[in-house]
């Protein structure tokens, strides 16, 4: 009987929510902050979609910090992953914008050279 109950408890323990929390994701936090900074330096906030993802990155970074304060380190780590992914996307949008501007400028240069020849 006792054996059976112990087995049940063990099973419940396995199926139940894992409460074990790992070590605080300090390195990941630093990396995420770095990724956000890089996106901001690339000019992500000047571009609407970049701005949205920077905002999401910041929100999730803040939430991650809060979870770290509560020692919910696993959850904090996953939030940092989300934040980092958003920062990367924001930075990509900024780079895309830069590339598109460069294309525009190159096109203008070509048009400028073509114009007098066409006249």
């Amino acid at each position: 009987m006792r054996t059976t109950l112990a087995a049940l408890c063990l099973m419940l323990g396995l199926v139940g929510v894992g409460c074990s929390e790992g070590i605080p994701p300090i390195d990941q936090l630093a990396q995420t902050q770095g990724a956000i900074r890089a996106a901001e330096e690339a000019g992500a906030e000047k571009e609407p979609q970049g701005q949205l993802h920077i905002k999401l990155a910041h929100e999730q970074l803040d939430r991650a910090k809060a979870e770290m304060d509560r020692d919910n380190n696993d959850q904090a780590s996953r939030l940092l992953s989300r934040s980092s992914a958003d920062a990367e996307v924001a930075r990509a949008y900024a780079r895309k914008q830069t590339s598109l501007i460069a294309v525009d400028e190159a096109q203008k240069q070509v048009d400028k050279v073509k114009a007098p020849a066409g006249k």
Partner: protein
Amino acid sequence: MSSRETNMQKTLPLILASFFIVLTGCSLAGCSSALPPKELIDARTAYDRAKDGIAKELAPADLDTAKQSLRKAEQAFQDDPESQKTKDLSYVAHRKALLAEIDAQIEEADRKRAQLEKDYQTLRDSELERQRLALENGKAALNKSQAELDAEKKAREEAEKARLLAEKDKADLEKQLQAALKSLKEIAEISEEKRGVVITLSGGVLFITGKFDLLPIAKDKLNQVAAALKDQGYPPIRIEGHTDNVGSAEDNKKLSQQRADSVKDQLVSQGYPASKITTVGWGAEHPVADNGSPEGRANNRRVEIIVNPK
């Protein structure tokens, strides 16, 4: 109590078995039948879009990362559809798919820019070449017209120079002619007749009566005539010898011929081309004065030099 225990002993395994079956069933069948969270649906959609778009060609590494990320999310969904971990991994997978798509667009833009820069270089080079050629042509045309202008100017200057020279020559010639005529007038009579300009030298000045040897003074005079005609470019001349009517006509003709030849020899000795001189002895055939008086006879004894005879 014993019957209760007996019942418990009978029913507990059944309960446990049922519980186990429910749990296992839930964790297996429940997973596959559970609806995926919105995050996973978004991730799948984003990945499919990236996979079917330009990312496959332009950002294959990013697409692969997105694929791995989605696989993890799918695995988490299989393991625990409702878990926050599944949502979080799906969220990240969605971003990775977006990233692949954006990176592909960046690559596409960069390639387009590179091509445009190449086009620009080519166009600029050809435009520069066109301008260089136009400049060269313009320069050549300018040089040509400058050369033409120079040549024209030179020709004009030369023509002017030639004209001035000709004018000067003409004036000089006129001057010389006047000088020559003046000097000739001192020694001879000059008249312009139908047969040409006639220079008449008195026989008394040139010869001793009955002879055809020139007197020394006569040679000087003839030399002056030669010099004057030389300045005229040695025009063709005819030398005519004339006598008075004293003596036989035959002798007179012979003498007049000899005298004309003597004059010719003297002129030739001064450089006058012999080919330009003809001589004739008329004897007394063409008197210019009355042979009845000594004065008239003296006038008839003469040598005439006809310049440019007609």
